[in-house]
């Protein structure tokens, strides 16, 4: 498809387990973003990738969270030793370029539930 895709759409895990969430950005988009949407916190920025530059990790809530982007395309967000407060919808977005008001196109999200 032409849009941002994310997998899985839903993930239920037990506290303490590790999870990996995947994002496929729109082809040709150089910038990729991860956000988290939760009831208590609204929409929060997590991490941002632009081309081959070092990612902006300023939004990651703890060192249990990490992300990588391979080959400038697909990205994986990893949460280690999940906690119940990690339950949220994780949204990925991509844009043609970074900054300057570029429109970010969002995927449908992955709903993570930590039991």
């Amino acid at each position, binding site marked *: 498809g032409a849009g*941002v895709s994310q997998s899985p759409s839903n993930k239920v895990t037990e506290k303490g387990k590790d999870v990996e969430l995947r994002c496929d950005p729109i082809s040709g988009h150089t*910038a990729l*973003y991860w*956000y988290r949407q939760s009831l208590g916190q*609204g*929409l*929060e*920025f997590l991490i*941002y990738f*632009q081309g081959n530059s070092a990612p*902006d990790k300023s*939004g990651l809530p703890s060192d249990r969270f990490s992300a990588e982007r391979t080959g400038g395309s697909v990205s994986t967000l990893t949460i280690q030793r999940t906690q119940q407060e990690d339950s949220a919808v994780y*949204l990925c*977005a991509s844009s043609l370029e*970074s*900054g*300057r*008001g570029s*429109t*970010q*196109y*969002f*995927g*449908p*999200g992955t709903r993570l539930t930590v039991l």
Partner: protein
Amino acid sequence: AQSVTQLDSQVPVFEEAPVELRCNYSSSVSVYLFWYVQYPNQGLQLLLKYLSGSTLVKGINGFEAEFNKSQTSFHLRKPSVHISDTAEYFCAVMAGANNLFFGTGTRLTVIP
């Protein structure tokens, strides 16, 4: 630092009535402003954005917003709403950095 305030968490409005969803922001630098909509069980979709130029911005589905620098506001308006406009609306700013700062959202419910 940037912040976005959406004062109304819920806005009920009758079908075909006008609606205004309020958004105020704070930033020490110039900003770009966005409104996104999230329909039930769907992802975020861009409604409109302000980058520069005319302060009145028109978007999809008949929505428009006006950038007011002196009041640091970017309110969203529609002259006549439809049932299909029922959704959650998010105001966001981009200032300097590349990521978006979102407001907490306004749930618009259109009543038949």
